[in-house]
């Protein structure tokens, strides 16, 4: 018996040594204790047709950058084609990979894939929001609606048709607001293009449509949830058309105010103000971030200058220190940059990231 135990011990030791020698063996990263909001998980969209969407993990405290964190943590596996959004539920991040038609769920401590929702047909996940441990909502763009999924089981629950080419989505209480963009020129003539669908998540029915503007793409709620803001974009075939932002009462759905100006996307609500890019059509890029103090009766946007030589493709606020985490897509065909700015626009730090960074979560 003792000999038998000894043999088992030797075999176990050999297996241990062999497994340590295996070329494809990955060492489980040790979760490191970090203060809140000191790690950014950046979603890099990638280039069309290249299958090169990626996740970059940046530790602001140590300066460490894992350029393709998902690939490194999952034996070189690709994230897929055209990632667009990310949302957190506890230790799990849900990343929408639009062209690959997946929502990839990963553990934010290790980067390991913990599950995947695979869509079929025309549904391509775009914007995502987690409402509760059992309720997540994602727009399906070409699927012309939203999908409801369970973030705990990582399972698709159902889909709801809302309108052509859905992009932005936010949820307030039992209602989801869904932007039916119509993809600008391409589907602007279809019913409900350029509207916001108000979806009752209990009955799973669209209760009403709010007129927004052509190519409505992004939605945000104010911190208290009482105001809904929608960004609608320029129609390319109509050079004189302007884009703008609409403010609604999120409870009564009444339109309150509308600002028409050449602002860009990346709509954010942070500490009582609304933020969006100031888009310059002459250079096809944004030069400033506009800040709208919506608490005022008359809103005069103020500018936060962006670094020259950048191609801003998105930004988020670091709620820990109020800094702006700016994404620079450069030429959209090379690795991008993450630039940390002070609230006044001063460059504090720069980090490399993957191709075309568009969103991030900080934790």
């Amino acid at each position, binding site marked *: 018996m003792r000999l038998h135990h000894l043999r088992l011990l030797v075999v176990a030791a050999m297996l241990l040594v062999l497994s340590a020698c295996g070329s494809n063996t990955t060492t489980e990263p040790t979760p490191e204790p970090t203060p809140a909001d000191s790690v950014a998980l950046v979603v890099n969209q990638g280039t069309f047709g290249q*299958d090169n969407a990626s996740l970059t993990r940046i530790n602001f405290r140590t300066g460490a950058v894992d350029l393709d964190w998902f690939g490194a943590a999952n034996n070189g*596996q690709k994230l897929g084609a055209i990632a667009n959004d990310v949302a957190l539920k506890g230790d799990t991040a849900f990343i929408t990979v639009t062209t690959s*038609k997946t929502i990839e769920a990963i553990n934010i401590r290790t980067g390991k894939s913990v599950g995947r929702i695979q869509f079929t047909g025309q549904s391509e996940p775009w914007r995502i929001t987690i409402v509760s441990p059992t309720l997540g909502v994602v727009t399906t*763009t070409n699927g012309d609606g939203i999908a409801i999924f369970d973030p705990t089981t990582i399972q698709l629950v159902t889909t709801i048709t809302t309108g052509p080419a859905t992009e932005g989505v936010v949820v307030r209480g039992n209602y989801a607001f869904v932007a039916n963009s119509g993809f600008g020129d391409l589907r602007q003539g279809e019913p409900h293009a350029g509207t916001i669908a108000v979806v009752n998540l209990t009955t799973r029915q669209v209760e009403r449509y709010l007129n927004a503007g052509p190519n409505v793409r992004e939605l945000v709620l104010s911190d208290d949830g009482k105001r809904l803001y929608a960004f609608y974009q320029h129609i390319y075939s109509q050079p004189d058309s302007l884009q703008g932002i609409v403010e609604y009462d999120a409870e009564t759905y009444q339109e309150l105010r509308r600002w028409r100006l050449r602002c*860009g996307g990346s709509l954010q609500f942070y500490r009582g103000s609304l933020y969006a890019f100031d888009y310059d059509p002459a250079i096809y890029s944004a030069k400033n971030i506009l800040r709208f103090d919506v608490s005022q009766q008359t809103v005069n946007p103020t500018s936060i200058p962006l670094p020259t030589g950048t191609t801003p493709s998105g930004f988020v606020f670091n709620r820990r220190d109020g800094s702006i985490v700016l994404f620079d897509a450069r030429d*959209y065909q090379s690795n991008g940059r993450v630039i940390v700015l002070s609230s006044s626009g001063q460059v504090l730090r720069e980090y490399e990231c993957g191709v075309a960074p*568009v969103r991030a979560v900080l934790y």
Partner: protein
Amino acid sequence: MRTWSGQVLALAIATAHLFAQRGDSVRYVFRPVVVEDSLRRVVYAVPRAELNRNELVQLPATTVGDAVQAMPGVFVRNYGGLGGLKTVSLRGASATHTVVVLDGIRLNVAANGLVDLGQIPTSLVEHVAIERGSRSAAWGAGAIGGVLELSLHRATNEAAIVGGIGAFGERSLRFELAHGFGRHSISVAGDLQYSRGNYPFTFSEFGTVRRVERTNGDALLGSAVLQWSWQLPSVATSLVVFGRTSERGAPGAVLQGAIENAAARLDDRELLAIGRVETGTESQRRWTFRFALRRFDQHYRDSLARFRGPSGADDRFSAFDVASVIEAPRLRSSEWWIAPKAEAYLNTLRGNLYRIGAGSYAERLQLGAAIEAGWSHLLDSAQLVAVESALRGDRYSDVGSAVTGSLQLRWLPRTFPVGGRASIGTSYRPPSFNELYYQNFGSTDVRPERSFDVNLGASLVGSTLRCDLDAFALWIRDQIIAVPRSAITWSVQNAGRVFSRGAELLLDWRDDRWRMVASGTYQRVTYDDRSSFTYGRQVIYTPELVGMARLEHRLWDAVVVTGQVTYLGTRYTQTDNAPSSALDPAVTFDLSLRVGLPMEPLVLVLEADALNLFDAQYAIVRNFPMPGRSWRLRVGARWNGGA
């Protein structure tokens, strides 16, 4: 002395003509200057490589796109399969910088400036020549990287028919008929090719490597040429009608979780008629008139392209072009010559994605005039210097005017079988209709692109060996590139500067039974905007190194076995040349067998190809897999009517 050099020039022209008539016996036949007939030194004014009819038959290629891929300075961007787009880039320039000329008429489509060489079968082509360098002064707009000249096959067999089968459901049929009566001759040739295109390839998806089949890759291509010629003592008239049709899938990139354009279909119809009238005889002054009409219809549909609406995409484009070219007689003296030329092109295009709200119609009238001149001089009894130049002006109805020029110098010693050449040239390319008017993409603000190039080369020509070596530098300015307006929308502007430099080698050795051809291209093609972070990086999808070696062995007179190895170097898909964006080098090996067995009055034909023998898995364009190992077998007969 002057008279002597003039005689040399006349001899050169006559010799070139003789060589041209001999066809297969001499490969390099276009506009050479021969100093000493016994040495057969031939030096082109600009870098040039050719494929004649015999070579096209020997190659394991069914389309021009496949046939030219191994020529010096050439990179064929191939999206895979019989129906996949195949375009030619020269010297690291883009495919829109290569002018494709068919029997003297430019084929580049005004809509996008491209020619899909995968749609032109080699069986209908008599001769292929590629001139490298900025050649707009001689060939007109677009010749920034160079020119690809095609001559349609003039059937010589009374009758021939060859049918074949191959891997992935390949079926093919080609035929030709020719007849002469009196001063007239008429011929017709046709080519039909079909493939299911469902070739397997390996693909990594969600962490699992799988072997899957290409979907929606089927293609049916049909082409035909009708030629009629009428020869009078002082007038030669010919009419060529080239028609083609294709129905094919247009599959997109193979991505994790999705295959783009999995249901996209593309149908083409093209009819090109070229009339040619030449007055006078070869030895006399003569006028040449060319007149061409072309109709090109394209229908693209994709029921799954929901971003275009509930029923997907359904786009139709219809182009109608008219071209006329007049070449005046060459004015000659003993040492110089002048050749004027004028041309007019009218391009029209209708498409449902053009100029929204303005009729979906675009047109362009181009008037051009060019003058080429040459001068040769015998420096002493041992060296000849020849200078050629060209100057050209073009006026466009929509994008202004352009003037281009070129200067070539040749040096020919008598005592060594080596000649040298040097040239400079300028070129331009006007924006295509897509770049001007395409919805969400075009901009009427874009200007023509410009280029300047310098070339230095040498040729060694012996009785069994020919070697051409060239070094070049090419600067492209105001390059029209797509820049992002947002993450999903791109638009064009004049934002690119590219500097390309490199060297090209062509080696051709042969004896009675063996022949070896090798070519290699080294090109460093970099972004040249010093203010950009991409400055000095290799331009995406331009390999630094491309090479080919081909060995032919003639077993008896009727059997030829050919092996060819092709190398394609690393390409980057990101402008910063990030290592993760590198596409690995690819090596493919092809083997072909050609048998022509005389059985009076017929010649039985057997052709067999084994392609990509070692099943290399690769993509020239990322996520567009190329076929692995495949085969092709064709049999048929030729009848020469007892000739």
